[in-house]
């Protein structure tokens, strides 16, 4: 039965090739755009290596503090400081492991009169336990290296290629920012979207030129990674941290002291947060994303609706005949919507192909270094869902119009 309808739908669509082409083009393009964005978002939020534990990791990466001293009031909003994290973020209930790592900074290397800039981070030992890097040579540095102040570093594949060419790097020496480091390990390249892990060079905190950072509470560009026992512990951790801040605020006469552990999604939402609350506007971000998605789909849907209306009017005499011979409105509407969904699904398939191409192009272009994003089943399901949604949405209005066509007037060629 269904197969019969599908065969009819196929023939109908082939009859008016121009309109089928326009519709397919529009649906294909729109869906491709939506899928590309979805795939990238999915990729950014997914627990991909080295962030294999992303689903149960929280990050404290910003803080706001307001203080009056010497008659001057200062409010500072920015990255958290090492001392702040060390003092308030350790030994929180529900946390299995905790690490403090610096935000990425630029390290320069002069070679042959040329200036090279590399992305570098300093980290502690537990960093390498929370994040699972893929080591091509050697291994991570340890707590002992940190204690002894050993000048070791882990470098990425790309850095190895630049510093050592094709030779192995383990044990080799690198000069960055005027300091020499011994290579303890080489890891596979990490792309920028693995926000907590991305860098080219990692070294222990103790190798920093000035150890003053340990004293500073704010505005010194560190963040804490908290590996929870399970997701269920998240609310517990957040509340515990906030109460510690409340306590600190009253004890040390800060007018404002804000900060909160966040999931990756909350981190994205946080980027637009105002400085007077700690709540990341996650719901607003999701709301805005859906709003933007619907708005984006609005134009192609309108297009499809117009085209469908025209198609209906064109077939009005056919519809009139069918009605005169006893076809029910439901039957006709159902057939029309099915044709529409069929069209949209074909468009969806085309879109999947287009998305794969675009993603490949983005990866090749090097806009985001070391990007490795692919289609997966989640994206595929979304494609299916959106295509069907399109089909029903753009078919509903014309189908309703069609069911109201008076048979006699339809036979005379046109519904007025």
């Amino acid at each position, binding site marked *: 039965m269904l197969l019969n309808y599908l065969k009819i739908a196929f023939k109908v669509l082939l009859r008016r090739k121009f309109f089928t082409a326009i519709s397919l083009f529009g649906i294909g393009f729109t869906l491709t755009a939506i899928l590309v964005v979805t795939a990238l978002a999915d990729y950014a939020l997914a627990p991909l290596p080295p962030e294999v534990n992303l689903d149960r990791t929280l990050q404290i990466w910003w803080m706001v503090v307001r203080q009056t001293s010497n008659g001057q009031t200062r409010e500072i909003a920015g990255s958290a400081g090492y001392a702040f994290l060390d003092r308030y973020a350790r030994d929180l209930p529900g946390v299995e492991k905790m690490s403090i790592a610096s935000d990425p900074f630029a390290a320069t290397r002069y070679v042959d009169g040329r200036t090279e800039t590399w992305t570098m981070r300093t980290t502690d030992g537990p960093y390498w336990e929370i994040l699972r890097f893929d080591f091509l040579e050697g291994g991570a540095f340890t707590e002992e290296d940190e204690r002894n102040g050993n000048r070791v570093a882990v470098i990425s594949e790309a850095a190895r290629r630049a510093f050592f060419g094709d030779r192995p790097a383990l044990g080799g020496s690198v000069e960055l920012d005027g300091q020499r480091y011994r290579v303890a390990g080489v890891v596979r390249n990490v792309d920028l979207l693995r926000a907590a892990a991305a860098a080219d060079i990692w070294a222990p905190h103790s190798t920093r030129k000035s150890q003053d950072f340990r004293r500073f509470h*704010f505005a010194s560009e560190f963040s804490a990674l908290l590996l929870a026992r399970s997701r269920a512990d998240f609310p517990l951790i957040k509340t515990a941290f906030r109460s510690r801040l409340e306590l600190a605020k009253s004890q040390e006469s800060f007018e404002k002291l804000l900060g909160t552990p966040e999931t990756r999604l909350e981190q994205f939402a946080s980027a637009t947060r105002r400085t007077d609350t700690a709540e990341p506007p996650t719901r607003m971000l999701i709301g805005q994303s859906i709003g933007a998605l619907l708005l984006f789909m609005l134009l192609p849907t309108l*297009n499809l609706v117009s*085209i469908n209306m025209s198609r209906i009017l064109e077939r009005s005499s056919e519809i009139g005949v069918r009605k005169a011979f006893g076809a029910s409105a439901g039957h006709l509407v159902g057939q029309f919507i099915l044709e529409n969904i069929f069209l949209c699904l074909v468009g969806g398939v085309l879109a999947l192909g287009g998305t794969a191409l675009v993603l490949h192009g983005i990866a090749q272009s090097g806009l985001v270094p070391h990007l490795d994003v692919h289609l997966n089943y989640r994206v595929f399901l979304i494609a299916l869902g959106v295509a069907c949604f399109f089909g029903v949405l753009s078919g509903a209005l014309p189908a309703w119009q069609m069911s109201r066509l008076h048979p006699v007037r339809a036979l005379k*060629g046109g519904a007025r």
Partner: protein
Amino acid sequence: MIRHFFKLAWNRRRANGFILAELLLCFLTLGAVLTIACFFLHNWRQPLGFEYRNVWRLDLSGGNRFEDSDDGQKAQGWARVDQILRLLRSRDEIESVSPLYFNVPFGASSMLTANLVGGTQRRVLDNRVGPEAREVLGLRLVAGRWLEPGDEALAFRPVVLTRNYARALYGDGDPIGKTLVVRNEDGKIDKEEERRVVGVVEAWRQYGELSHAPLAQFSLPAWGPPHLPPGNFVLKIRPGVSPAFEEDLVRAVRRIAPDWTVSVSSLARHRDRLLRDRLLPLLIMATVAGFLILMVGLGLTGVLWQSITRRTQEIGLRRALGATPGQIRWQILGELLALAALAAGAGSLIILQAPLLGIFDEVPLQVYLFALTLAALSLSLLVVGCGLYPSWLATRIRPAHALQYE
């Protein structure tokens, strides 16, 4: 004739409803993208206010900028800064040097103050610079004088304003010699030391050529302990200096302060990065807009084709009443342009809410008007382009055939 088209388009608004909605969305997209592009263009044409070519920045960070280091560290910091300044001034490759506190052109961090200007609390860049800054950065003085070394001895604190700040505070009057009054958001005067305006510079576009011009003021920094030493310097480099000089310089500074982080880079490189960051969102928006317009174009052509087929009799009738094929073509295009005009009108009303409500008030009204005009023209071009084939079809209708066609 034009009124006739508008009447037809208006009376057929329900049938044309979808086309109108599409054209409206298209216009809004075009309007938004063109407004941003025109805003950028408008900003680009304004003077930057300083010269960035052959200017480098030297950044030192030892200790924290905001938290109090102890007095011993501060003294050491100042001693090192003095040494570094002497080193910089001794090198032939460096023509002149000025210390800076945070507000480096094209840079991310800034030191701000605020003032009540024209009824709203506005942010003002608070630039603490040395007297050589004018030479290093090529600042253009348009009134009064620049800061001088002897100014520390004066009873008041001399301040140089940018032209837009001076105009906002004093209108067309002469700002030279006037006292700079700083009010907080409640309107109360912030009593610090007395500040007097001694000069006006053209502009200080710290955020780059694509951004609006911020309000800014310049004054000499408080030098020596117990104040914080400067963490940034700008250097005017002699043209034609060898690339190895950068490394050379960095090593020399590191010898003076081995536990400080030292970095040297050119303003030109920061400018490139800033431009790219600003242009990327616009490019993405333009791509999305291009796609939407393509969609509208295709859909429109298809719907028009259908509509011509439906109006065969009407077209035949008009030919019978004496219309030439050319007049029929212009009718189709005219109705389309009427629709486009309706869409552009409604869209403009919507977009113009932004300046009326005061959102994005860095964008001047003339930019909006110019961009909206461009958007209307583009929409008309699009609509005419889509209408060419269908209108050609309409002229091919044979009246005798059409009128008998039932």
